[in-house]
């Protein structure tokens, strides 16, 4: 069902011939992909295949590393992100990291609203309350923390912290949410909560997810990218890729021959 809807949708992100090199070693080579709106797209591949670099290139976080060079373009709704200011771009592209990283000096409430506070965006108290409640409800954390909003975010359990970090990314109502192995530091119960959440979130957001966990990709993603040594080997509907991979390397990876 979702696949047929997604098919007619316009791509929200078009990656065109993107190459990224650290000191002339290419981590991502000539990748071209269109990521469709309101889908979950999983980036898979063995360690060191460039999946994290590709993800970080989408909100220009990869530029934090030294001696990096980027070729090609990434279009977010038809405008090249490499012509935008990274600061503005990142407000359109939320990011969630491997390990939960709430700001330790801030309360739960302040963590959710951190994007506004740290950027000095003025909002009314009522507006802030609404944003915090909406974001926490979106990640199904509201009922668990509504009585302790002013406690430090670091007091929460690992899974709750990760959902808090997702709420922090949602507070800006970004168009795309980038996730770098968001469940790799979580236990199975917390993982399944986050996975359920992602499926729900794609109604309003587009999610790009790096994962090591193939069954996770199979469970929650609509589209999958398989990368190997910096190249995009295969891209397509997750269902098709898992049942009928085109490239032999994909098949070998999916059947556990390497990776």
């Amino acid at each position: 069902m979702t696949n047929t809807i997604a098919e007619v949708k316009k791509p929200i992100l078009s990656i065109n011939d993107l190459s990224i090199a650290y000191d002339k070693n290419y981590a991502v080579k000539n990748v071209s992909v269109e990521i469709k709106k309101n889908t979950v797209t999983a980036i898979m591949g063995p360690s060191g295949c460039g999946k994290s670099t590709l993800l970080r290139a989408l909100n220009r976080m990869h530029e934090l590393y030294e001696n990096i060079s980027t070729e090609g373009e990434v279009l977010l709704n038809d405008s090249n992100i490499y012509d935008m200011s990274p600061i503005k771009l990142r407000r359109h592209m939320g990011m969630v990291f491997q390990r939960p990283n709430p700001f330790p000096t801030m309360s739960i409430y302040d963590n959710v609203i951190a994007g506004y506070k740290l950027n000095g965006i003025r909002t009314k108290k009522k507006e802030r309350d609404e944003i915090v409640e909406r974001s926490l409800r979106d990640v199904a954390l509201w009922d668990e923390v509504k009585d302790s909003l002013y406690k430090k975010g670091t007091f929460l359990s690992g899974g709750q912290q990760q959902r808090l970090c997702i709420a922090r990314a949602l507070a800006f109502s970004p168009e795309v949410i980038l996730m770098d192995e968001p469940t790799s530091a979580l236990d199975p119960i917390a993982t399944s909560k986050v996975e359920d959440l992602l499926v729900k979130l794609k109604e309003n957001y587009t999610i790009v997810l790096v994962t090591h966990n193939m069954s996770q990709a199979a469970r929650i993603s609509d589209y999958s990218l398989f990368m190997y040594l910096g190249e995009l080997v295969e891209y397509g509907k997750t269902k098709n890729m898992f049942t009928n991979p085109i490239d032999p390397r994909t098949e070998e990876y999916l059947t556990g021959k390497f990776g």
Partner: protein
Amino acid sequence: MESIQALKNQDHSSGRLLKDKLVLIGVVILSLVTISPIMLIIFKLVMEGYRQISLDFLIQNTPDTFEAMTAVANGEKIPGGIANGIVGTLVMVVLAAVIAIPVGVLTGIYLYENQGKMMANLTRNVSDILQGVPSIVLGLISYLWVVKHVTSGYSALAGSVSLAIMMLPMIVRSTEETLKMIPQTLKEAALALGVPYHKVILRVLVPTGFSGLLTGILLGISRILGETAPLLLTALGSSRINLDISEPTSAIPLLIWEFYNDPNMIDLIWSSSLLLMAIVLILNIVSKQLAGKRN
């Protein structure tokens, strides 16, 4: 096979237990040797100094030699106190902190952000060398810069400048070390929210490492509190409370030096030292607590 059995059957336990005990006794004795000086110092200061400690001691200026001599001759308590020194120390230390903290913290941030780069390495090394410069030399430098050219005379400002230079490397180091301990992911979290770089540093990294920065600053302050040599060449001393930073000013360690040179004021040496020691001790304990909290 047999030899292994023989080895197994040998009983070394009594010899080993004895060795174990001897080492333990040695460790305990040497630890006691290490902590005994500070215990003896505190004991001596309290025993000799407590008699002079009173409200007057904190709020009155130093007596002149004649008053002290009369009091000593009559077997009375020496009148007056060291308010001029307390206020002078406070003024100079605060001013030194105001100069050194922004420079030190910003330099520390610079070093943290430019790990491995040549300029940063050079800065770090120079800062380490600065820490080794004898304090009397810093006093001389401040005398040349400030006493001769800025305030045209001995002044609290000159004292503060020399103290600030002393404090600087400690703040630089502790800032860098503190920031290095903050996980990189926190910085990324803020950057990923579209927070501009300077705000990431000022509103995320500095608050997160705040207790660490404070520890460095407090240790820096406790280090300069007792400095005497540079102040002799810069602040000179004063017998009254002075709040004008362009005028000669007293300080607790300067007063201790003055009392030492005046046979009538021996008692005041102990009480002033006791006060100084107490302040330094409290600062050290507070900064240890802060550091413990952070870890």
